[in-house]
């Protein structure tokens, strides 16, 4: 299916219309237009700039969650918020405000993520329990470690790291540009590498994939480690962006990571995913909140509408039964 569409030399427009991810960009654009129509064009570019910045964080964790969801029904990573809290705190501790320690701090955060990923997969494998429970139990533990060591942590990120995470070149956030590159790399990994193809194959039919000689266990292991490593990276970036790590900074990323995958047009049943849709969906989610803020609604109504929109979008987009398992 995916190989066919990739090979068929079709024209761009029909191909775009046929792809499921384009709708997330259409939605994001519609919300943006509605917002600037309300403000009579004021702040149009500023809104886009901040949308790019904040969406970048959604995209980082969303890509990891996408690989996990692609690996088939039941696969999901619920440890992302706890992971972000711990990795962010760890990155700030290692960097200790010194520019020279930035690479080491980022590496520590990613390393912390890798460890969480290993813990997740070890629980799934050794205890033979569903990933939901395994990643949930792991996240309980990770959250506790983060609370115990991260409480009252008031370490500012190094100036260089803050500048990188908040800086802009001609209105384009540096961080967002880097994450676009990351997304391109991950799209290549998903569609063009043996590992990425194996993840999709396992998501479509694990038995067939195994009979075809793919190592299901190793692929799943790599997938959980990848997701957790990206969550770790997100933790470091988020701490740099918000001027220090806080314990609850990962909270909203559980819903966001799953929502961007689904709204982006990837199949929830696994096996059929795409990366561009994650960017579209992340922009959409952020712009919806911006729009509601611009309209001046209170926190309560904003939350209700956010929830309703998410449910409406997946009812419209995610409802098509995939038919292949």
């Amino acid at each position, binding site marked *: 299916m995916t190989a066919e569409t990739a090979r068929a030399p079709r024209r761009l427009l029909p191909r775009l219309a046929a792809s499921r991810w384009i709708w997330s960009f259409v939605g994001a654009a519609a919300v943006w237009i509605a917002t600037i129509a309300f403000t009579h064009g004021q702040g149009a570019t500023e809104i886009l700039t901040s949308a790019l910045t904040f969406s970048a964080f959604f995209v980082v964790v969303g890509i990891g969650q996408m690989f996990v969801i692609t690996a088939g029904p039941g696969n999901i990573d619920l440890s992302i918020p706890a992971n972000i809290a711990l990795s962010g705190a760890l990155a700030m501790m290692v960097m200790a405000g010194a520019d020279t320690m930035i690479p080491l701090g980022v590496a520590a955060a990613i390393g912390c993520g890798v460890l969480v990923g290993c813990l997740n997969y070890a629980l799934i494998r050794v205890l033979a*329990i569903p990933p*939901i429970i395994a990643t*949930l139990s792991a996240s309980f533990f990770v*959250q*506790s470690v983060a609370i115990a060591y991260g409480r009252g942590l008031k370490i500012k990120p190094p100036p260089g790291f803050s500048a990188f995470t908040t800086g802009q070149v001609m209105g384009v956030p540096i961080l967002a540009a880097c994450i676009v590159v990351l997304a391109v790399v991950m799209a290549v990994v998903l569609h063009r590498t043996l590992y990425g193809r194996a993840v999709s194959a396992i998501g479509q039919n694990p038995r067939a994939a195994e009979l075809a000689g793919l190592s299901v266990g190793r692929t799943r292991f790599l997938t959980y480690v990848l997701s957790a490593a990206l969550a770790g990276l997100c933790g470091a970036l988020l701490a740099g962006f918000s001027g220090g790590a806080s314990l609850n900074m990962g909270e909203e990323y559980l819903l966001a990571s799953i929502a961007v995958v689904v709204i982006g047009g990837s199949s929830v049943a696994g096996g059929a995913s795409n990366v561009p849709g994650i960017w579209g969906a992340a922009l959409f989610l952020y712009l919806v909140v911006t729009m509601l803020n611009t309209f001046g609604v*209170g926190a309560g109504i904003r939350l209700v509408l956010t*929830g309703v929109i998410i449910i409406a979008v*997946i009812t419209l987009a995610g*409802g098509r039964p995939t038919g292949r398992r």
Partner: protein
Amino acid sequence: MTGALDAPRAPAPAPMLRALASPRVMRALLPAMSMTILLVAIFVVQPRAMSYFGLNLMLNLALPIAFATIAQMFVITVNDLDLSIGGFVSFVACVGATFLNDTPLLGVVVLAGCIAVYAALGALVHLRNLPSIVVTLGMSFVWLGLSILLLPTPGGTAPAWLVAIVKFKMPFVPFAILMSVVLALVVHVALMRSAAGVVLRGSGGNPLAIAKAGWSLLKLKVTMYAFAGFFGVLSGLSLVGMTTSADANIALRYTLLSVAGVILGGGEFVGGRVSPIGAVIGALTLALAGSLLSFLQISPDWQIGAQGVILVVVLALRALVNRAEARAR
């Protein structure tokens, strides 16, 4: 599976003992054993807890968790997961502390509407073949938003009759224990021992067979979600009766606690395998874990972590039992 079949083949001197050691019984006893171990540990560390007053104090807040766990169990039975139960219980608590007190009739209508919303969610998830995780995560935003609209700041007052029921001082046995036992038994009989219960569980265990037998999977799923909403309402009401006032974030942690409780109690994510008695015990175990930690003077920072560890240990034991069973076959 093993106990009954093995008995004639090997004339064991004590068939009762053999039956007790069978993996099936072991698995069923695991939740109760973990709670007993926890209780014994608590009594050893703090003997004064072994009293009416001590138990009452420790188990007071366990009852709402038990209700929420049962609600979660109904959803898990049909192979779904409810990530909005914490937000829902908070909302019910807010309704209990506002509408139900000020305009009781409106309060009852709102709560009935909540159950209808749950039923509608079940229909939506079934008809559009949606992932329950995403739908309920979206709903968690809706409930939280509604709670904030109702009670922007913590406050409200629980109706006096509700407080009187929840704080009712039973002779000899703390009310929370009695209610937990009643809850476990009623749901057990309804879901595990009745004909309707078999069909309801079957809609999660083998939907194809149930559909072929002429049952409407839609109706079954709607029923199960409605039950989840009903027990969510009970959870919120018992919580607000205990705390006498509410706030929008009051029960957000129930989402994870309830999932953990169901799993601790022997529930599995596939095939409608659940245990109502186990789920209640699982909820009590998680609630008691907090007490033990504070008696041990361990920082509350580690409370969630300890719950995670308990979960992993019990699951590890169950994996061992399962492996023993696989070997025996």
